[in-house]
Every structure is written in structure tokens, then in C-alpha cells.
């Protein structure tokens, strides 16, 4: 390390108060998060205001967001008041039930249409895990005996086509592609056409990552969707938004704006194998009511699981 670089830490010293206090705070949260929310409610005894404060913090730390957290706490307090849930175990059970209810309300499985291929359009912000999810999902459906074709609709990012082709090669699944820079709707068109002609069960179309506020790129996606509808009027049957669990409250904006522009049918949450809990899903489910289809729990082909609200809540609560 050069002289100049280490000097840069100097200005921090005179803010020692802030940083040492912060350090204490961090250690404390790490400890309380280690056992998860579940640990808070361990043992006997009634639930008092301090415990509720700690619960609030744990929920916020899990990216549940201020509004959903407030909702959950209000419901819990009502439970304490109305149903006399005062014992820790009762409150804990109530909490879990509440969260599972929120998440389960909208759950529906993806339905394969009869007499035609299911067309799945995968969208989301940059780097959320779209291409990887497609690779895993295609492999899974193939294992289930389905015939699948992939469409390399990300013609923008460097080596995006090669990335999807590599997944296709590993799982021995056909992948329709054009040159880098080609019109993504043309690739989508070809892919759906191929699925129809070859009488396949599913076509999964990858798209380039884009931030939800980018008006031009959202228009591009709308066009992809329109063009798919020209081959098969009922398609795409499923427009799947891929969210990254390590992202915080921006996932709300992502879901809102992608939904507004393209009408999403399902969600996937990736990277749940990290330390982030993806609590924003609670907020999202309450507001938009879009079912969560799958979760990603790693980078390997087998690291895709069907969403299970109970398992998700258990992981979030940490018990």
C-alpha cells in the first residue's frame, strides 16, 4: 500500500466517537441477528415493550421496510390485546402465522397451457440473476421431462449470449440466438416460433438487465412482449421478475415499475444463500400481490427451489 492511501484514513480519527459507537452497535446487531428473531422469543415470560422494540429492529434489519414492519407490529400488539397473546411462544407463533399469511395469500403455481408451449419472459434489473435463474429453471423442467428452448434475448451486455449458451450446453437444451446487438424482440420471436414449430413444452426468454426508471429500455421490453404476442396471442404466459435478495427497499420500486409497464405474473428472489433475508417480499406481497415462484440459493444448477412461504419465514425468523 502506498503512503498516500494509508493517509486517507487519518480524517476518520477525529470522529472517533461516531465510529466506536457504531462498532458497538454493529457487534450488538450481529449478536442479536445471529440467533435471529427466534432467539428473541426463546424461553418463558411475557412479551414487553423492549422485546417488541428488538423485534422491530430485527424486522428492519431483514429489509422488511418501515411500513410492513409497522403493520406486523400493530397486528402483534392487537393480538396481545384481543387474544391475550402475551407468552413469548404465542407471540412468536402469531408472528410467523402473520408473515406466512401475507406471503401465501397470492401463491399460485405456474400453469402450463395445453396445446401450446408455455412462454416465459424473464426480466429484471442488472445483475439480479436472470440468466442464472433461466439456466437452473430450464434444467429443472428438463428433469421433469419437459422439452424446453431458451432465447438469448440479452443482445446488449458483453458475453450475455455466450453465458446463456453455456448454460444451455451444460444441460443440453437448445438456445436460439442472434448476433450481439440484434433486436431482442426478433430473438424472442424466433424463440417462440421455434417452440411452436418443434412442439416444445416451454420457451424461456432472457432479456438484458435494465433499471426500472429507464424509460427507453422499458419501452424496448414492451415491444418484446408485443412481438411475442404476434406469434402466440396468449403469450407470454408468464412474465417473471427476478429480484436480488441483497437489494433493499428499491425492490419495491422495481416491482412497481416493471409491473406497471409489463404486468408481472411472478417473482423470483435470488441470492438467498447470502446473509440477506429478502424481507422486502413481505412489503411487496402486501402491496402488489404477485406470487413468488422460486428462490435462488446458490450459483449451481441445483440451487433453485420452489418458493415456500413457511420455509422463507423460518429462514427470516432464524429458527
Amino acid at each position, binding site marked *: *500500500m*502506498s503512503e*498516500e*492511501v494509508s493517509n*486517507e*484514513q487519518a480524517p476518520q480519527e477525529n*470522529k472517533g466517537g*461516531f*465510529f466506536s*459507537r*457504531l462498532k458497538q*452497535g*454493529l457487534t*450488538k*446487531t450481529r449478536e442479536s441477528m445471529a440467533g435471529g428473531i427466534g432467539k428473541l422469543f426463546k424461553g418463558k415470560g411475557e412479551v414487553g415493550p423492549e422485546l417488541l422494540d428488538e423485534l422491530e*429492529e430485527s424486522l*428492519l*434489519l431483514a*429489509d422488511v*421496510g*418501515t411500513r410492513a414492519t409497522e403493520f406486523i407490529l400493530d397486528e402483534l400488539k392487537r393480538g396481545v390485546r384481543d387474544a391475550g397473546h402475551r407468552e413469548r411462544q404465542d407471540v412468536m407463533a402469531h408472528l410467523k402465522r402473520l408473515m406466512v399469511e401475507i406471503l401465501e395469500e397470492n401463491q399460485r403455481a405456474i400453469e402450463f397451457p395445453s396445446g401450446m408451449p408455455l412462454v416465459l419472459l424473464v426480466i429484471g*434489473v*442488472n*445483475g439480479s*440473476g436472470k440468466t442464472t435463474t433461466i*439456466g437452473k429453471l430450464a434444467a429443472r423442467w428438463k428433469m421433469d421431462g419437459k422439452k424446453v428452448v431458451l432465447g438469448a434475448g440479452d443482445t*446488449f*451486455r*458483453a*458475453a*450475455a449470449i*455466450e*453465458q446463456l*449458451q*453455456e448454460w444451455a450446453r*451444460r444441460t443440453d437444451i437448445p438456445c436460439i440466438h442472434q448476433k450481439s446487438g440484434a433486436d431482442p424482440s426478433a430473438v424472442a420471436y424466433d424463440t417462440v416460433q421455434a417452440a411452436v414449430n418443434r412442439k416444445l413444452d416451454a420457451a424461456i426468454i432472457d432479456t438484458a*438487465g435494465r*433499471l*426500472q*426508471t*429507464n*424509460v*427507453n429500455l422499458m*419501452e424496448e421490453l414492451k415491444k418484446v412482449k408485443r412481438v411475442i404476442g404476434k406469434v402466440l396471442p396468449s403469450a407470454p404466459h408468464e412474465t417473471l421478475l427476478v429480484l*436480488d435478495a*441483497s*437489494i*433493499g*427497499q*428499491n*425492490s419495491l*420500486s422495481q416491482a412497481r*415499475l416493471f409491473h406497471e409497464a409489463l404486468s408481472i405474473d411472478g417473482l423470483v428472489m435470488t*441470492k438467498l*444463500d*447470502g*446473509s*440477506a433475508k429478502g424481507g*422486502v417480499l413481505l412489503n411487496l406481497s402486501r402491496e402488489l400481490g404477485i406470487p413468488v415462484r422460486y428462490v435462488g440459493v446458490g*450459483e449451481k444448477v441445483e440451487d433453485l427451489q420452489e418458493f415456500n412461504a413457511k420455509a422463507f419465514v423460518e429462514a427470516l425468523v432464524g429458527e
Partner: protein
Amino acid sequence: MFESLSTRLDAIYKKLRGRGVLKEPDVDEALREIRIALIEADVSLPVVKTFLAAIREKAVGQEVLRSLTPGHQMVKIVSEELTALLGEDFKEIQFAPQPPTIILMAGLQGSGKTTTVGKLARRFKQKGKTCLLVPADVYRPAAIEQLNILGKDLGIDVYQAGEEKDPVVICQKAVQEARRKLCQVVILDTAGRHQIDEALMTELRAIKQTVSPHEILFVADAMMGQQAATIAQAFNEAVGIDGVVLTKLDGDARGGAALSIKSVTGKPIRFIGLGEKLDALEPFHPDRLVSKILGMGDVLTLVEKARQTYELEEQEELEKKIRKNQFTLEDFRDQLKQVQKMGSIQQLMSMIPGMSQVKGLKVDEGAFSRIEAMINSMTREERAKHQIINASRKRRIAEGSGTRVNDINKLLKQFAQMQKMMKKFSSGKMRGLNLGQMFGGRGGGFSPF
């Protein structure tokens, strides 16, 4: 006009108007709002708590400046403190006295490492440095190919690892090659990894020990959530980072993660990523980000500017009208006048969150005097109730202002749209995208008419 922290605080401080110092209970009430704002902006909770305690100390007993409302005073304290925490202005990466300067990229999956390698290389090349890019991500499908393509586009060498599959060996050999070829900068692109993945964190440490990089850059997605503090701390403890690059700030990310990362690591944020293209890298300036975190665009600057031209009362009157949907063409004209006093429209627009995304935004400043002329040619009644402007009135207005009936139609249509948008603003739905739509803008030059 904006559902911002400052307006929320203003509401709290309405009753406080005119009093001299910030009192404890009032400060605490404000801190509750600030807490929500920071958490919604994804600042990690422990950082929020420590920050609020610091603010409290600063604020209680502080005298309210005469030109400010107590709400603004709080925002001022908060933003000054945030700016101080986020660190000084831009600091360039230091080149090693003995080339090559070795830069190691690290971060979570998909945070933008490989793209940032390309962006940095482009920047160094422009400064006349020779670079070698090194693909040390042997796991992700086509990761190596991705870097090869970026290198080819930039005309910058990419190390060819051949059959070698060990990232540590790749980095080691690449650095040797760079020395041989007298390259000035080597940038090592590594695979994305979770901080809890022991094997991959060990690999990162091994790379560090083997090549002794001069700069380890932590590449973080600006949209990161509560875990940002924990993750950054873990990377810092594992390898000791020297700087941070914050990517994907071109959207509506509030960027609270920046504060978390800076607070726990104390390391400077060097660059921000503002797009996918390789020229979309900019030096970091804390003040801009502070406004984003507080959800106010460059509202602070706007507030400053506005204060010089507006009377406060007048501004409130206008806000009230907007809220009640009583904004008339006359108000519109007055606003335009005020706005023109504040500076160029283009400049003002660039301060509004999200506006920068409306690609190719071009404002025809002359159009505004045309609008003024048209509104001037209307009767008072017409200005107050634009719905009554029928065909014959339109002809008269057009003649009076030296424009065409078509122009009047456009004005009225856009005004109606604007009223609709303003209603949205005031009900708190204000977003960059809407502004884009407001001007029908996507691509190809924007002109109000």
C-alpha cells in the same frame, strides 16, 4: 412540491415557527422522521442509530437561522453531517511509485465488478496508461469471455490464462506478464462472492497475499439493503479494502448503502457507476448523494436558489394551490418567470431526481418566452379557467401572441398534463419516471413544444 424529508419536517415545525432555538422534544420528533427516511433509503440500522445520536447532540439548543424554517434547519444539520460522514470530495486511485499499479476488484455477485474493470481501464487509457485486464473469475459461465469482449472494445490487453483454472495462479502469472510488458496498471477481475462463503473469501485473501495489490476496490450495488454494513465490514476485515465503487446509481436508488459502507469501513468512495456503458463512471461527490439519500434530488440546492428569488409565503401559496389542484395558467406563467430567474431550465432540470435519465434531454429555452406570450394574450378569466378557451378564443390568443392555434392547443394539452402530474407530486407519487413521461420524453430531443 416534493414529498421530501424537508416538507415532512416542515409539517412538524409549523407550530414552531418564529421560535429561536431547537428544543429537545422538537428535535426528537424530527429525529423520528429522519429515522424513517434513512431506513427507507436503506441505511443500515446500526448506522442510523449512531447517526441519529450524533445529530441529536448537534441539534439540541442550536439557534435557527433567521432565513430558515426549523425544518430546513434540521435538514441542513442532517445533510451537513451526512456529507461529512460520506467523506471528502473525490480521491483518485494512487499510482504505485513502481509500476505496475495492481488493482483488485471484490464484491458480491452481480454488483458490477467486470463492467467497472472496463470503465476503469477506459479511464486509465485516456490518461495515457497502459493496462492489462485479468480474468480471475473462473466460475461464472462466460465471465472470461465478458472481459475479453470489453478489452477488445477498448483496445486494451486481456491476460490469456489458457488452461489455468486457479484464480491465484492466474493473478500471479498475469502480474508477472505485466511486469515483463511494462504495463502501468493491472486490474484483477474476480468472481462475485458472499462474505459468508469461507472458501471464496480464503481465495480472495490468497490472491491478495500473492500479488500484494496497491488498491483493493469493493464494488457495491447502490441498491443494497440493510446487509450493506455487515457485508462491507466482512470484506474489509478479510482483505482490507482501500476504496469503494458504487454502481447502478443511474436509477432511483436512494443509495443509503453508501453511508453504511463508508461508516463501517472508513474507506473513501472513489467512483460511482451511472450506466452500463463504459463511459458511465464518475468521480464521487458526497453532496449529490446526500440529496439522494434524503430523497430530495438536489433539493437543498434548489431550496437555496429558490430562497433568493421567492418569498417564502408565495411559495407556500403555490404549494397549497398545487395540492388543491388550483394551479392555473397564470400561476404557470409566474412560475416560469421565477424559474427563469433561477437559471437555465436545463440546469434546473438536472437537479431533479430521475431527470438525468430522460435521454437526450434538450430544452428549448426560447419556447418559454413563447408560452409567456400566449398566456399574456389571454384574458384573466381564461387564465383562471383554461377549460373555457374555445376555438374562437384560441384564434384570438394565437393572433395576439403571434403564434398558431396549434401552438395554443399544445400549450393547453401540456398544461392539463402538468396539472395531472402535479396532483401526483403532491400526493407523494413523485418519481423520476413520471417526469420523463410528463414531457413524453424517451430518446430523441425534448422540447416543451
